[in-house]
Each structure stands twice: as structure tokens, then as C-alpha cells.
């Protein structure tokens, strides 16, 4: 691999495409084991500066790589991800490997089984390199809430990579993996992908099994891929999507051939542009890049229609009530009894719970547990949690109506490019607003793809978000391909 130059973009490197890499392995030109070793070398070199990986699963990766090499040598047909180095966000569990969710409370935890997505990636031939840094329990928009220190943005290491899947986005941007998995509850795949200049996919709620995902907010959590290009992201989604008996919320709807779908032309597609996503707070340079991206869709033969989603401004308050309420319930399981951290000196059971949770959780996690507990507590349930669920219905209905007239909706992914480390840490509410364009789709359960759409004068990536109706990832991929094609 080429060595880094001394420019501000010294850490950015585009990985080979899946096809290129697979062809090399299948033809015997290059060994999967050699590729894995090269990636581990690059990780060893860059990780001290970027803090992308929390732990490596070298033994398992090299074993898988030699299996792929043996299969290639025999001339067996290879899986769609044969020999491809992939990184896994640390909220997803791999049997026997540390899985911290970015929290001190899970330090030293070695889960006894694999997440469904982990098993599916490996069945397709992927070589899983290790576990990626993230905000604690996926709660954050900058990766600064990780108990193991923030990830640095490979484009500019003084800036955040976004969050919560900051490690997953940065790993692809810096070629420390060819592709990665992350999770998205309110924007945690799309916003960091946008900040780091890579492709990120939030599939429809229920499209991908969440068995083995450490839960944050169960009515919102999704698992999805990051990749350097749309086609590779579509390949990964095809591998991990589909029914799973171990997750009752997982949809049994058939999985289309996302690669073939993403290859289709966008001519005559109807693209909606919601005015509410281009108002106050949108960085002028981001607006300009997105408008140029929309022009390119028009040139590709799409019909661009202005639309209105008037309830959009209520999405952030709705999200922070629903998500924190569910988090307060989900995080009740961390009690120092069955796994994870236990405070060493407590005389009573009740003290042990309190001390373990107080010492194990970071400030943002505590803040959200408290807010969620408050919203669910007697006397406040109707005013906060129930009210938020009702507004959630209005937001979902608004999207359903919009998709009767358009095939996809395009918006900026985030209101600004990547901000500086420390810029928003003192003001939780300002940090929450970093998700202003992503949370509405999360609440509505629809799918979204973010694709690089130019950069600012300072060289910071801008992402365009393409939203598709429930289970219509195929359309989002098609539109994303067209935007991507216009960039080169």
C-alpha cells in the first residue's frame, strides 16, 4: 500500500473495490492471508493517531483468510465477500472477542455467541479484522462519548468523525478496512459516513436481524454497512439482510438483488426535495454541494419535485423522548450481576447496583437514562412518552404520503461538515441538533443511504442523504449510484 503523504489528508486512502479484490483472490494472484496481514500492518501504523479499533480479532481473521485461500486454491466457488477485510462496530458481538459498546461497564466482557450479521458476513467469506470504536452504547454524534477516547477524522484529525459509528466510518475512509458494519438509531451510520466521506446505509427497520446487537433503543436500532462506494455497500446489505428466527422484529420480506438494482438507470425517477431540510442552520457550502448533486440527478433524467414535510421540526424532541425512554429500559440490564463491571466494595445488593452503574456508565449515558426514566415515570408518561409516540405517528404518516408522489427523497445528511473535537461537548442540546436531518427517517422506520457529494473549500466531505420508502433500499441505492457517478 502507498505510504502517507504529509498533507492534511494524509490518512485518507481509498480501498480497492470488492470486485477487484475478489478477482485477485479467486485467480490466486493474491492471498487473502496476505491482504489481512497488510491491513493489520496499516492498522498498527495508523491506529495510534486515529483510535479507530478498540480490539483486533487476528487469530479468527487469519484462520478465515486461510480457509478462503484453500477454497480458492481448490477452485471452489467463493462467497460474495471472500477474503474481504471487514471491521465490526463494538456494539455487535463476536463470540469470545471483547465487546465493550464503548463503555467501561462492559470492559473485559467476552460474549459467548456471534451476532447474526457477524455469522452471515463470515459465511460469505469476509475476514473480520476487529472491533471498532464508537460512542458509549451508541449514544453520541461525535464519538467523544467513548470511554476509550475519541476517534479522529482521517480527513482532518482535529475534527470529529461523527457518531456514534465514528470508528466504522473512519476505518473505511482511512482504508483500515474495505467495509464495516455500524448501527444507526438516530443517524449513527449516516452522519459519520457523511463526515468521513464514505457511503453509509441505514436499512429499513426490520430489514437486518439485530440478534447480537447491544440494544440502545429497540424501536429505532438498525444495523447497516459502510463502504467506499455504493455498489460495495449494496453487496454487504445483500449479505446481512433477511429473515432471522432469532429476531422477532426482523422482516420476512424477500431480499432483492441490490447490486443488480443499483446498476439500473435513474431516468424518470421522481425525486422529492423537502423545503424543511434546507432552512435555517444549514451551512451554505453544504447547501451548495447538495444543490449541485440535485442538479446532477436532474441531468440524469430524474424529475425533481419540491415537497413539504411540515412536522420535521418536531423530530428531534420526539426522538430524544422515545430513544431515551427505551434506553433507560434496555440499560437496566447492566447491574453487575451476570456480566460486565461490578463495583468492588458494596455491603448491600442495592449499593452494588448503584455503585456498579455509577462507576461503569459515562455522563451522556447517565443523562439519557435519567431523561428516559423521567419521561416514563408516573405523572409524566402521558405528557412526554405517549405524546412523543403520537407525534411519531404523524412523522411516519407524513413520509408515507410523500412516497405516494415520489420514489426517493434527497436531503443533506448533516447540517454542517465535521466539526472540531470539543466544539459541542459542553452543550448536550447543540450536540443533539447534529442529527436534525437524520432522526425523522429513524422515527418513521424508512431506509436511507448517504453518499459523498463533494467537499467544502476546506476539503471537508459533504454527504447527500437519499431516503427510500419502507423496504425500498433498491431505489435509494440507484439514486446514490447516480450521485456518485456525477462526482467522478
Amino acid at each position, binding site marked *: 500500500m502507498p505510504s502517507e503523504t504529509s498533507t492534511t489528508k494524509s490518512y485518507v486512502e481509498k480501498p480497492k473495490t470488492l470486485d477487484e479484490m475478489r478477482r485477485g483472490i479467486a485467480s490466486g494472484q493474491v492471498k487473502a492471508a496476505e491482504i489481512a496481514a497488510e491491513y493489520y500492518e496499516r492498522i498498527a501504523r495508523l491506529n495510534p493517531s486515529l483510535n479507530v479499533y478498540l480490539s483486533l480479532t487476528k487469530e479468527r481473521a487469519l484462520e478465515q483468510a486461510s480457509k478462503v485461500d484453500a477454497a480458492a486454491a481448490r477452485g471452489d466457488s467463493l462467497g460474495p465477500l471472500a477474503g474481504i477485510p471487514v471491521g465490526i462496530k463494538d456494539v455487535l458481538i463476536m463470540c469470545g472477542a471483547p465487546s465493550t459498546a464503548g463503555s467501561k461497564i462492559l470492559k473485559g*466482557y467476552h460474549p*459467548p455467541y456471534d451476532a447474526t450479521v457477524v455469522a452471515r458476513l463470515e459465511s460469505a467469506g469476509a475476514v473480520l479484522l476487529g472491533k471498532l470504536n464508537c460512542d458509549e452504547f451508541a449514544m453520541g454524534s461525535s464519538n467523544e462519548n467513548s470511554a476509550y477516547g475519541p476517534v479522529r477524522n482521517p480527513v482532518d484529525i482535529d475534527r470529529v468523525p461523527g457518531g456514534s459509528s465514528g470508528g466504522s466510518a473512519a476505518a473505511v475512509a482511512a482504508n483500515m478496512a474495505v467495509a464495516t458494519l455500524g448501527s444507526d438509531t438516530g443517524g449513527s451510520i449516516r452522519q459519520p459516513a457523511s463526515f468521513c466521506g464514505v457511503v453509509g446505509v441505514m436499512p*429499513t427497520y*426490520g430489514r437486518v436481524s439485530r440478534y447480537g446487537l447491544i440494544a440502545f433503543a429497540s*424501536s429505532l436500532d438498525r444495523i447497516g454497512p459502510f463502504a467506499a462506494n455504493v455498489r460495495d455497500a449494496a453487496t454487504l446489505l445483500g449479505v446481512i439482510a433477511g*429473515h432471522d*428466527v432469532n429476531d*422477532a*422484529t*426482523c*422482516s*420476512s420480506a424477500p431480499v432483492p438483488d441490490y447490486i443488480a438494482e443499483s446498476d439500473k438507470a435513474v431516468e424518470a425517477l421522481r425525486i422529492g426535495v423537502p423545503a424543511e431540510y434546507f432552512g435555517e442552520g444549514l451551512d451554505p457550502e453544504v447547501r451548495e454541494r447538495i444543490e449541485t448533486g440535485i442538479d446532477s440527478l436532474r441531468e440524469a433524467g430524474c424529475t425533481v419535485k419540491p415537497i413539504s414535510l411540515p*412536522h420535521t*421540526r*418536531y423530530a*428531534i*424532541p420526539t426522538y430524544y*423522548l422515545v430513544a431515551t425512554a427505551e434506553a*433507560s429500559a434496555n440499560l*437496566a440490564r447492566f*447491574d*453487575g*450481576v*451476570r*456480566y*460486565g463491571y*461490578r463495583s468492588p466494595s*458494596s*455491603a*448491600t*445488593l*442495592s*449499593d452494588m447496583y*448503584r*455503585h456498579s*452503574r*455509577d462507576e461503569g*456508565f459515562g455522563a451522556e449515558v*447517565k*443523562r439519557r437514562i*435519567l*431523561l428516559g*426514566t*423521567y419521561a416514563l*415515570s408516573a405523572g409524566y408518561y402521558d405528557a*412526554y412518552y*405517549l*405524546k412523543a*409516540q*403520537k*407525534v*411519531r*405517528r*404523524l412523522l*411516519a404518516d407524513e413520509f408515507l404520503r410523500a412516497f405516494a408522489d415520489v420514489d426517493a427523497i434527497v436531503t443533506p445528511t448533516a447540517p454542517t461538515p465535521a466539526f472540531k473535537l470539543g466544539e459541542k461537548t459542553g452543550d*448536550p*442540546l447543540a450536540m*443533539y441538533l447534529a442529527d436534525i436531518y437524520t432522526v425523522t427517517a429513524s422515527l418513521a*422506520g424508512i431506509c436511507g443511504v448517504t453518499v459523498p457529494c463533494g467537499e467544502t473549500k476546506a476539503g471537508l466531505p459533504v454527504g447527500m442523504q437519499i431516503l427510500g420508502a*419502507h423496504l425500498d433500499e433498491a431505489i435509494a441505492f440507484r439514486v446514490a449510484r447516480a450521485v456518485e457517478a456525477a462526482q467522478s
Partner: protein
Amino acid sequence: MTAKVTLQDVERVAELANLELTRDETEGMLHDLDAILNYVDQLGELDTGSVAPLAQISELAGVGGRSSLRDDIVRPSLDRSVVMPEAPETDQVFFKVPKVIER
């Protein structure tokens, strides 16, 4: 902006959530919760009297596919020998915790 939350509220909620906060933490949380709850108050502008709450996306048409209920068949679960070593304190059969019952 009027104060919505009192110090006692934060202490009560912390107790419900099994969190023990220091005095400093409690005051910080009081400030943050107050700001966030004042912000979410804007939901009150919407008349939701006739709107049914949306709790699960899979109830929306077509998302869930056919019934995702599986047959109730006994099948092996994780073995105790792989689960117990993850616990902070066990005798390999039971989880051990500080004494609960006084006698």
C-alpha cells in the same frame, strides 16, 4: 425559561434508575434535563387528540412480512459453562451477590 425540574426530581429519578450521582453530577444533570425538557415542550403545539401512538414500525403495512412468530420447539440454549465465567462472581452454578436477606 422556567425551571421544570427540581433537585429532588433528579434525585428521585436517579433512585428509580439505580444511579448514584455525586452532588456535582446531580446539579449538572438538573441543568441539562431542564434545558432538554424545555426544548421538548414544543411538542405541546401539536394537537394529537385523535392520533394513535406509534410504538412499533412493524405494524406499518408490509414491513413485517408474514408472521415472524416461530414454532415453540424446545432447542438447546447457551450452556452454563460458557455463560458463568462472564459473571463477576459465581460458584459456577449460581450468580453471587451481596447478602439480600438479613436473619
